[in-house]
């Protein structure tokens, strides 16, 4: 197995309140570099909560998350934001693009926040990213001028903007038609093949079937873990053969 990009030890997330309940109940998980992990499970099983924890959006009640071998429980919000900016790319069920900004500006947002590149370099990189996702024609359109699938691909481009090691996607195809779903699947598979770690929460058995590994969460615990392919090269050939079919 590859070196763990992200690892959790005894992860627990409880919501305290009038009625306290446990969202994530003791999960030990290790995800390697270039691995495509699908998290499935019934509604309310805690799979999204687990994803937010993995993406450092939420903090665990107990346990520890290691990102790139670094413990994260002691970090401030600012430091976590820094890690998210550099190493995690997020895709949500809703595209969450900034509505007043063009596709290009949305992709530029994380790059400009991180800085480091000149404006022209950032633009070139963002344009290349959008083009690679088949959005070359759409770079100057605003989200409301784009189709659902295009929006989600812009969101993917934004997630990839800072070359993150991890892509975290929460039901990325939840709102999409079959064709768009297929496109987004393909992109996620490609991303994993490029050596990034992809963690996806999904209801879609088709998407889950294409992951390297699938874990099923029930009541905040890992109920079932299935290794679908040990070799990424196998996955690629499988992927390529499937990608041909719908077109």
């Amino acid at each position, binding site marked *: 197995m590859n070196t763990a990009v992200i690892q959790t030890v005894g992860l627990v997330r409880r919501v305290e309140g009038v009625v306290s309940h446990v969202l994530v109940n003791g999960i030990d998980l290790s995800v390697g570099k270039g691995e495509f992990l699908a998290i499935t499970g019934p509604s309310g099983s805690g799979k*999204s909560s687990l994803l*937010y924890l993995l*993406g450092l*959006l*939420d903090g665990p009640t107990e346990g520890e998350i290691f990102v790139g071998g670094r413990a994260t429980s002691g970090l401030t*919000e*600012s430091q976590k*934001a*820094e*890690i*998210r*900016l*550099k190493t*995690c790319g*997020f895709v*949500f*069920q*809703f595209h*969450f*693009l*900034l*509505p*007043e*900004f063009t596709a290009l500006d949305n992709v530029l*947002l*994380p790059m*400009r*926040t*991180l800085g480091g590149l000149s404006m022209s370099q950032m633009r070139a990189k963002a344009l290349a990213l959008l083009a690679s996702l088949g959005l070359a024609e759409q770079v100057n359109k605003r989200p409301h001028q784009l189709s659902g699938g295009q929006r989600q691909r812009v969101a993917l481009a*934004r997630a990839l903007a800072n070359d993150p090691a991890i892509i975290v996607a*929460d*039901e990325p195809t*939840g709102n999409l038609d079959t064709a768009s779903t297929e496109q987004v699947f393909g992109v996620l598979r490609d991303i994993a093949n490029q050596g990034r770690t992809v963690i996806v929460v999904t209801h879609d058995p088709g998407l889950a079937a294409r992951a390297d590994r699938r874990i099923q969460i029930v009541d905040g615990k890992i109920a079932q873990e299935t290794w679908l392919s040990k070799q990424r090269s196998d996955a690629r050939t499988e992927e390529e053969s499937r990608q041909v079919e719908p077109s």
Partner: protein
Amino acid sequence: MNLLLEIAWTHVTTRIRQTLVGIVGVAIGVGFTIMIAGLMEGSQRDFIHQLVDTLPHVTVSDERRSASTQPAEQEYAAVQVANLPTADRRAGIKNPNSVVASIESWLPGAISPSEQTTALVHYVGGHIGVTVTGIDPRREVKVSKLADQMQKGQVSDLFRASNAIIIGEALAQKIGAQIRSTVTISVGETHSLAATVVGIFRSGVHQIDESQVYTLLRTAQVLSGQPGGINQLRLRLDDAVAAKDVAGRIEAQTGYKSVSWQEANANLLSAFTVRAFIMLTVMAAMLFTSCFATYNIISTITHEKRHDIAIMKSLGLKEQFVRGIFIVESVIMGAVGIAAGWVIGYLLCYGLSRVTFFNPLSGEIINVPIYWTVTHYAAVGMLTLTACAAAAFFPARKATRVHPVEIIRGAA
């Protein structure tokens, strides 16, 4: 362009209606505040101006502030003197010429010695008590506005007749006197003289117009029975504000009671302090109200933008950065609103300055006094800008503190 500014700018420019409401709120607040400031300070300055103009800046009289001490009292602390017999002291300022000359040697302004006495003017209907002030017309015109107040005749006409007098308009009306009329003026039973009216003035203060009579020094001295006597020195300074210091210096130098216009009108001036406080309170309240508009709009914007806030935070933008966006938006609205408010304020002031009132008592047309100053615009602008930033800070902080997960979860 800076990312933060660009996002803020895009937000305010894509939501024109909301932005306009915010701008108008600020603009109205700023405009009215500037108007009130101009009006209040204008009327105050106008009032002080009139006060300073109509009255001498410093009046030196032949009195002393406190009873003079006895040599024994100066020497021994235990000595107490009571029931002193009245010393028959000659009225008036001693050696007036040398006193005037010594003050004049350093005085930044003009000085006019005069002899003032009370007298009765006799006319057909009866007797009226008046104040007769003997003046030197050449000096007087430098000290008072008498020359400007002349309705008929001139101050120098006092030289043109023996026992010439200048009387107030109200008095002239009352006794039916006209130029070249002869009136009888008397002091007690002894001194009485026939005087010729050579001029009529109107000061605007009814009490003065009704009871003030100007003559040459010589005539007044005859009436008071003090040949060569001077019992009042009136001063006009180049800088009216210095009156307090000048009065103090004269008093220290001569020992005579010197009253500056500030001292003479201490009650009025302290009333102005209260007025200034009221003005500041009203202005603060108006600015506060206009900032509430900003507060509301930023609250609404942050509420509408909570998805954007969530995504920006989840992407790794820092909380301070996201908060800064909304504060900058408020400041942008504030800045534009202030500029518009300046225009509104200027126009309001201009409009008010054209308003006139007619005073039926004095027969004068009065303008609304407006004080024009850049200070008002700058101060109101600075205050508003600060207040806008502060008004945005709280809703922005509240909105950006929310954990992105709560919103993302809610949206799903």
